[in-house]
């Protein structure tokens, strides 16, 4: 029997369909027949009735029908189900035979044709009747289809047709229902479909009758001898119902069948048959349940099935048969389940085909194991001859029976010797079965399923099992591939127990394949903290690891297949012999090897003039001390690597042999600290130095060596979690002896900044804030060196600190030269003013002048850079140092200048009059907190103004204290202007000043102020009076009024003097006069004061006829309004004269 003996027969698994045979068709030579046949076969979609057609010769031999026995009295059934039965009804015994015959109603030789057709029918019928005499046989019906060329007339119209039809039926003894006409026209397919539907009905009735026939046997059976038949009949009815497409009833029959099977008396000899049939029926039931979309019923049935059959092991020597069968049960259920899902059923995480495949796999594994135990015959034992598994027919009569005792139903085997041979044969066969293949196939099915249903862990687990199975099957490559793939899942989830077991298998594989790198990697993890192996195991592995590192052949792993070990050993010795490429690099972050590492800078930043210090902590947690030959740190700047390197000087061969550097031996559980220091490069100032990786070399260049690297200087697959735990952990703080530290307390500092050396100079600023706008503000920088050695090429950068308001840059200027006055050409910041060298203790004083054109506050920067040579770790370096001083200064205006125009009488003027003198007055109000000296002042008049007398400064040399005010005035007049009035510019006022400062001699600043514009106006008549400066009571007071006509016209002027209580007067009281162009008139009055004190002069009313709009009080403005009158006294005059 083939290893596939447990596969379910195809006739069981297929979907049964009614079988209809077509005869009388010559599909090879006759095109028409061909077309008809094709129409039957072509696209049989779900909407076509489920029939399987076959074209058979007219005289085809159908299976003979055995004579139906009249009673079951003496009948003992030999088995449950004949192996041929299902196939017979699917493919051999048609439900209907259709005879095709070409015949038109109006055929000339109708008679002949009719009889020919009749005989053909006859022939077909004969084939079903074994004995002409008996009338019984198959219930198979025969139908006739007349292929006609003409399209038939509608029924009833063609009398000939109906008449001949009935004749034909008579001749062939057919019922009218069994005669069909197939007009061979273009609507062929349509006709065919009609036809097959008709056939289908016939078939259904046929199977219906079959079911009834089988049922009818029931009353003849008795419970004692015929249980097998009960089962058989139920099964058959179920099967026929399926053929009839009546799945509901089919299910019913099968269920009863299943019950009956379990009622059968089971014993070792028929166990297999019972299980086989149970399996069949169960399969049918589950299949139908899924088909009816009641998956839970299917699952329930299956569970019941399993529970019932689990214990039905059968003969102990053939236990593997049982497990094989069980495995198959699960597998085929899995298949059914999966199929149902493909057809739209939805499964869930906890109920999916995967579980069944998995279970199938487990049974397959068990089978393998049993096979191992039961089939381990010594080589001598061969396959028995004659072959007990041979049968006469080459096949079995009944499902699930033993070839050497078919049909035997009694409890104990008839021939114990044969029995032995048979069993032996089976065992020998089992021995050759490739179990692993079966197992792996099932597992991978399961994997696919669990992947689909979100079970990553289940998936990994199954993959582990696959890996292990491959290992057993000696396919180490595949095994390793799988194991290596899933390993990380268990590592990241920290399931060390599982990881360990996987690693162990992986280690075996890598050993057997002589995979050095894998071997080393796995060993490293297996002896480490992530492994739960017992010490002695770890120690064994470590010893092997060391062997490998010394380029020797490791001891084989325990319980490996001896043959493979042989192969492995030679593999290894080859590996050893071939030189070169003995370096292996392992990046630890994906593993948890037995060496741990932490590297840290001692500080987050180092000054350039101190050595950068770096500690590397290494710790091993393997059973035996291990020596490493090299420890190196690679930093972001490669140049430093050379200083962070520890190498074993003694190139000793043996890793265990003690060498000069004792500290290169890692003692389990002890943390070793390695200190490195180096002097940073001056160009690295301001840069970050990072630990890129730490490398630890185990082994020797001479032998084989492994280079472990920790990216970033620490951390492997396990450490991050450990660190977290440690950080939280309450832990007794215990003193550690020198060179030893508590691993957990070591923190990480994987990068550091190189910062410039602390400057040893002082920078002081002396100045007198605030600055005054436009002045040359002096700031004195005093730099004193506190260095031990000479500070070389000092450079001062001074001025406006960059990054402030842009306008400030425009309005700030700085220079070294106080005498000149800055302008826009000067920068806001003076870079790198060279100051030369500075001896220790020496001092430089540097005045700087800053001019701030606008007010507001500014931040000024004074940056002193220099270089000094220092010795670090006996290494001379020149380090640049710099010191910054910043200061914020306010700028204020030095003084406010107020200006106004006044009349000669110091009266405020909105406007001035042509040729009439007026005063320009200046008030200079100091706003500066410091005294300011007004060096000089001058007015620069515009063309539209003229000074009356030579204007000269009245404030020259004046010094103003805070909020003091200086004033001066200038007498001016305006030359005539065309057209009555206009606004004219007046010119500029220039003040030269400087801050009066005790300290630095400051240079003078010229501040130019633009004079305001003023409105100038022509006037037609000018009048002024001449009179003494005072009068006396009762003494005459002569007053002369002059009137000037300033026009080119003759003017009539009317003048009157108003009477006043204070004066008497003589002269014209009222007069009207004429003044020629440019001419002038005088009027003389004698006033006679009556009372003393300031007296209002008698008011003069002037009336210009030509210019009525010029009011008299406007003109009056030119005249004095009052005069002082002294009281009368004897010698008052003299006394006053004296005064």
């Amino acid at each position, binding site marked *: 029997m083939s290893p596939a003996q447990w596969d379910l027969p195809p006739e069981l698994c297929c979907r049964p369909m009614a079988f209809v045979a077509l005869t009388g068709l010559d599909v090879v030579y006759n095109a028409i027949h061909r077309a008809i046949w094709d129409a039957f076969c072509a696209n049989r979609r779900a909407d076509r009735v489920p029939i399987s057609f076959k074209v058979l010769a007219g005289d085809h031999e159908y299976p003979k029908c055995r004579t139906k026995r009249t009673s079951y009295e003496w009948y003992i059934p030999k088995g449950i189900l004949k192996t041929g039965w299902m196939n017979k009804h699917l493919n051999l015994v048609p439900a209907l035979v259709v005879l095709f015959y070409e015949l038109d109603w109006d055929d000339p030789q109708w008679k002949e044709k009719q009889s020919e057709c009749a005989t053909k029918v006859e022939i077909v019928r004969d084939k079903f009747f074994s004995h002409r005499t008996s009338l019984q046989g198959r219930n198979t019906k025969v139908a006739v289809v007349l292929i006609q060329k003409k399209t038939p007339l509608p029924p009833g119209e063609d009398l000939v047709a109906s008449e001949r039809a009935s004749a034909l039926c008579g001749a062939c003894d057919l019922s009218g229902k069994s005669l069909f006409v197939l007009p061979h026209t273009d609507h062929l397919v349509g006709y065919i479909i009609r036809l097959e539907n008709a056939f289908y009905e016939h078939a259904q009735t046929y199977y219906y009758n079959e079911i009834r026939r089988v049922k009818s046997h029931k009353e003849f059976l008795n419970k004692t001898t015929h249980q097998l038949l009960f089962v058989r009949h139920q099964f058959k009815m179920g099967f026929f119902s399926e053929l009839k497409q009546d799945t509901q009833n089919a299910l019913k029959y099968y269920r009863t069948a299943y019950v009956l099977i379990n009622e059968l008396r089971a014993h070792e000899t028929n166990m297999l048959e019972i299980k086989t049939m149970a399996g069949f029926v169960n399969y049918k039931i589950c299949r139908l349940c899924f088909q009816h979309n009641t998956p839970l019923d299917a699952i329930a049935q299956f569970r019941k099935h399993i529970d019932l059959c689990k214990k039905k092991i059968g003969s102990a020597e053939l236990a593997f048969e049982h497990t094989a069968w069980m495995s198959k049960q699960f597998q085929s259920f899995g298949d059914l389940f999966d199929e149902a899902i493909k057809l739209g059923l939805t499964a869930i995480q906890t109920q999916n085909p995967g579980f069944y495949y998995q279970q199938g796999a487990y049974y397959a594994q068990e089978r393998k194991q049993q096979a191992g135990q039961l089939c381990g015959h010594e080589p001598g034992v061969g396959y028995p001859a004659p072959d007990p598994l041979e049968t006469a027919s080459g096949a079995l009569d009944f499902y699930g029976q033993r070839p050497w005792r078919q049909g035997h139903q009694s409890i104990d085997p008839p021939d114990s010797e044969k029995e032995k041979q048979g069993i032996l044969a089976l065992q020998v066969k089992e021995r050759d079965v490739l179990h692993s293949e079966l197992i792996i196939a099932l597992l991978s099915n399961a994997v696919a399923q669990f992947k689909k249903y979100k079970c990553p862990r289940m998936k990994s687990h199954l993959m582990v099992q696959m890996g292990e199975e491959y290992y057993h099957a000696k396919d180490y490559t595949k095994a390793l591939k799988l194991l290596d793939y899933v390993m990380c899942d268990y590592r990241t989830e920290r399931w060390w127990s599982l990881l360990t077991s996987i690693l162990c298998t992986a280690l075996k594989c890598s050993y057997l394949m002589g995979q050095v790198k894998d071997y080393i990697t796995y060993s490293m993890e297996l002896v480490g903290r992530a492994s739960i192996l017992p010490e002695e195991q770890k120690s064994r592995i470590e010893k092997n690891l060391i062997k490998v590192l010394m380029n020797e052949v490791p001891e084989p792993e325990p319980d490996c297949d001896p043959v493979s070990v042989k192969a492995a050993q030679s593999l290894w010795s080859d590996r050893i012999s071939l030189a070169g490429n003995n370096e292996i690099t392992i990046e630890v972050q994906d593993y948890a090897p037995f060496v741990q590492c932490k590297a840290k800078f001692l500080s987050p930043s180092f000054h350039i003039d101190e050595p950068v210090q770096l500690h590397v902590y290494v710790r091993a947690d393997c059973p035996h001390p291990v020596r490493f030959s090299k420890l190196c740190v690679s930093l972001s700047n490669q140049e430093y690597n050379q200083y962070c390197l520890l190498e074993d000087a003694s190139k000793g061969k043996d890793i265990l042999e003690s060498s000069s550097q004792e500290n290169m031996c890692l003692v389990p559980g002890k943390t070793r600290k390695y200190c490195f220091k180096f002097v940073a490069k001056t160009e690295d100032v301001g840069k970050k130095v990072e630990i890129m990786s730490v490398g630890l070399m185990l082994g020797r260049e001479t032998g084989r060596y492994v280079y472990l690297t920790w990216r970033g200087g620490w951390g492997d697959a396990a450490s991050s979690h450990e660190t977290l735990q440690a950080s939280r952990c*309450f*832990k*007794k*703080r*215990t*003193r550690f002896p020198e060179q030893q530290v508590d691993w957990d307390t070591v923190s990480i500092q994987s990068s550091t900044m190189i910062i410039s050396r602390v400057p040893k100079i002082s920078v002081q600023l002396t100045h007198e804030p605030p600055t005054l706008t436009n002045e040359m503000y002096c700031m004195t920088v005093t730099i004193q060196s506190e260095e031990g050695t000479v500070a070389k090429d000092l450079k001062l950068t001074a001025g406006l600190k960059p990054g402030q308001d842009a306008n400030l840059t425009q309005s700030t200027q700085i220079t070294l030269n106080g005498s000149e006055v800055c302008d826009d050409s000067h920068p806001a910041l003076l870079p790198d003013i060279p100051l030369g060298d500075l001896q220790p203790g020496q001092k430089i004083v540097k005045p700087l002048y800053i001019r701030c054109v606008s007010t507001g506050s500014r931040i000024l920067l004074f940056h002193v850079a220099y270089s000094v040579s220092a010795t670090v770790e006996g290494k001379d370096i020149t380090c640049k140092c710099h010191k910054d001083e910043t200061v914020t200064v306010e700028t204020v205006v030095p003084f406010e200048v107020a200006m106004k125009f006044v009349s000669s009488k110091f009266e405020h003027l909105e406007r001035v009059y042509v040729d009439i003198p007026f005063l320009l007055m200046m008030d200079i109000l100091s706003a500066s907190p410091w005294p300011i000296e007004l060096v000089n002042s001058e007015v620069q008049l515009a063309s539209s103004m003229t000074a009356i007398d030579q204007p000269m400064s009245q404030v020259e040399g004046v010094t103003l204290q805070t909020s003091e005010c200086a004033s001066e005035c200038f007498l001016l007049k305006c030359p005539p202007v065309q057209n009555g009035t206009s606004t004219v510019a007046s010119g500029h006022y220039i003040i030269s000043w400087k801050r009066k400062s005790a300290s630095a001699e400051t240079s003078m600043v010229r501040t130019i102020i633009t004079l305001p514009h003023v409105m100038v106006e022509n006037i037609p008549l000018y009048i002024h009076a001449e009179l003494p400066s005072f009068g006396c009571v009762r003494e005459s007071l002569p007053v002369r009024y002059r009137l000037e006509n300033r026009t080119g016209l003759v003017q009539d002027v009317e003048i009157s003097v108003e009477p006043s209580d204070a004066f008497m007067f003589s002269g014209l009281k009222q007069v009207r006069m004429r003044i020629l162009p440019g001419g002038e008139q005088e009027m003389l009055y004698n006033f006679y004061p009556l009372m003393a004190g300031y007296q209002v002069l008698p008011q003069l009313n002037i009336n210009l006829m030509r210019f009525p709009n010029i009011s008299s009080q406007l003109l009056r403005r030119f005249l004095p309004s009052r005069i002082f009158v002294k009281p009368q006294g004897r010698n008052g005059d003299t006394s006053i004269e004296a005064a």
Partner: protein
Amino acid sequence: MSRQSNRATDSKKMNSELFTLTYGALVTQLCKDYENDEEVNKQLDKMGYNIGVRLIEDFLARSSVGRCHDFRETADVIAKVAFKMYLGITPSVTNWSPAGDEFSLILESNPLVDFVELPDNHNNLVYSSLLCGVLRGALEMVQMAVDVRFAQDTLRGDNVTEIRMKFIKRIEENMPAGDE
């Protein structure tokens, strides 16, 4: 769904849990800070003392017990009133010395050590030392100098917890209650 707690009512129990855990956190913190158990015990005792000297007012205020006439009475007050009040347990007073100046408090259960399991490396830790300090401090405030120590401790595998108290002397009023 509302989680309206019924626990609000019996919050005493809760609090005692809070107390127990907090005390636990303290002890472990001390274990971190100090090198050996003896120092930890000392520190706990000291802290207990500080608590004691302040706790006594609270006690006298709320439990209206007056001055005790003798040490025996004190013992009873401690066991029946004080312990009940603050730890919700009532130790039994036993093993009086003939002189009547020394006795034992037997605690069947000790709230401080609920859930506590001593790790191996702390064999000398007297976990509940705080209690000794409290008693000492409190009594000192009522002019009683006593010596308190743990004689047995369930944590250390004894089947009861026993606090041994010894009367030393009466402190005169004017004397400063000085210890630390």
